[in-house]
């Protein structure tokens, strides 16, 4: 059985727009990090178990990798309809009402992201200005792994805004073929466990 890549959700801009290329690049980086994380932790377990040798950095680096996977991958997750939502109410609406509601929701999400983005930029700048390093063997300057947070949030905010404009434009344009809620609409259970 193979689970297909759902690709961009209905109503979303084409994947190969400038935004699409950036999202694709970030997703590939997240995939590489996922693989590197598996290799690093496995190496640590094997070297510790068989050679009594520990790298003493795996906990720290794996944590940074997780942050990067989240923020590099979340825009793809959103665009492919994998962010969880309860969508049965949306199915009762006419396509036009649904687009209005979707557009409004996307603007609410954008507003939340804008606040988050602002807060994380301030946080990273504060870490940078105070020259805070991790209290570990590596002594990583923390602004480096933290910088991916505002970068990923900015990308998601742009994607939300693009989707909101698209949805509101469709709502404004009037009746059209029923395409179902987008993104993360019916069958959008890719993020469920």
């Amino acid at each position, binding site marked *: *059985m193979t689970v297909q890549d759902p690709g961009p959700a209905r109503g979303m801009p084409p994947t190969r727009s400038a935004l699409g290329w950036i999202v694709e690049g970030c997703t590939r980086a997240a995939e590489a990090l*996922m693989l590197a994380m598996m290799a690093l*932790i496995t190496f640590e377990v094997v070297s510790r178990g068989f050679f009594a040798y520990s790298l003493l950095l795996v906990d720290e680096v794996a944590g940074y990798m997780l942050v990067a996977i*989240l923020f590099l991958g979340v825009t793809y997750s959103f665009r492919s309809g994998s962010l969880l*939502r309860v969508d049965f109410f949306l199915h009762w609406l006419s396509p036009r009402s649904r687009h209005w509601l979707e557009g409004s929701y996307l603007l609410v999400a954008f507003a939340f992201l804008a606040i988050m983005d602002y807060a*994380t930029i301030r946080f990273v700048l504060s870490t940078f200005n105070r020259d805070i390093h991790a209290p570990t063997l590596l002594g990583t300057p923390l602004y480096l792994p933290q910088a991916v947070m505002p970068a990923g949030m900015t990308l998601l905010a742009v994607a939300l805004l693009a989707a909101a404009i698209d949805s509101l434009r469709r709502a404004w344009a009037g009746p059209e073929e029923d395409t179902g809620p987008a993104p993360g609409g019916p069958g959008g259970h890719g993020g469920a466990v």
Partner: protein
Amino acid sequence: MDWIVEATVILALFIGLLLGGLWIPFAMGAAATLLLFVSDGWSGFNAYGLITWGSTNSFTLTAIPMFILMAEFLVQSGVGAQVYSGLGTAVRRLPGGLLQTNILGCALFAAISGSSVATAAAIGTVALPELKERDYDPKLSAGTLAAGGTLGILIPPSIAMILYGAFTDTSIAKLFMAGVIPGLVLTGLFVAYVGLRALLQPGLAPRQAPTRLPVWRTCAQLMPFLLLILVVLGGIYAGLVTPTEAGAVGSAMALAIALVWGRFGWQQFRMALRNSVRISAGLMFIVLAAYLFAYALENAGIASALTDWFVSLQLNRLEFILLMLAMYLVLGCLIDSIGMMVLTVPLLYPVLLEYGIDPIWFGVVLVVMIELGQITPPVGINLFVIQSIWTGRLSQVVRGTIPFWGIIIVFVGLLTLWPQLALYLPGQMSAH
């Protein structure tokens, strides 16, 4: 503002946005942001940066992408067919035939995957064409797969348990072990029900012609999976590896199994990685929003006020547990499994401690209630997973799961009467 008014407004807003169709993390984030603004003004957002970093930079939560990757390697390589075929031969004498293989296949796959969706999809895709060809009852076929799939989050490893452990600071290793016996008992109850139905109504499950596959071949088919289970769960139980490490080693082993025994090329490899990023990032974003939500509730004093209020009701332990179970039954009809967890755990956890309820036992009960939600319409995710891979109607899937719904309710009763079903193995770990 009085905390009751504040809590009511915020929860009403959150649930309204959630049921109205806003994505779960944005609904939580919007509610948290509004609550913080009402409580502290703009300065309330100062903590967002630190919470975002603190909640996501976590070695414990690294287990989530690792177990997702492990399941994806196995699902994409199509080795579910091998599990199904091996078990089909092993259990062919049981009444119910392939229906028993559905349940046991799901249980076995659950032990190498942390997800109900992955379990139902992996076994369902292989099983449904076989069941149709052999003229098995469609409702019962779909029911065994949808319900069997829910075992994915009870039998460890379990992504739901990792999330619960991270939210409540409960040992994930102990939670995993706490899921083993309940998972086996629930599997046994499902098997017993299917067997009984097949004996009473033989037309539901036609007898299979006995196949004469040698025992060694059946063992060879199942061996890689049993080895994977042994390494992952055995390693955690023996304290040799943490759950996160077990996830990484399990992923590496799953990759090897996929390469050797599956149909696993470059395309499947890329797809496994992409799906893992897609699912992990989506889940982690919900985790982040849940931490923001929990912080906002705590900051406004709602969580502690709610605890005091629950304590002032002076319910006895059983009454409180029944109240919670009733609440989860209702929530299961409205909200997706992970949404159910992230909404309730930050609020209920302090109350549980006040009532002296074991957090490990509660973690298992919560996961079982989530399982129930996964087969409860209209949002039960496993119903849609099975519906998406077969040719019948959704109503048939729903009707097929009703008996299993009843079995899970009975099972929650058993867990409440005998908490040791969940607590025995974690207790043995402490004793080491």
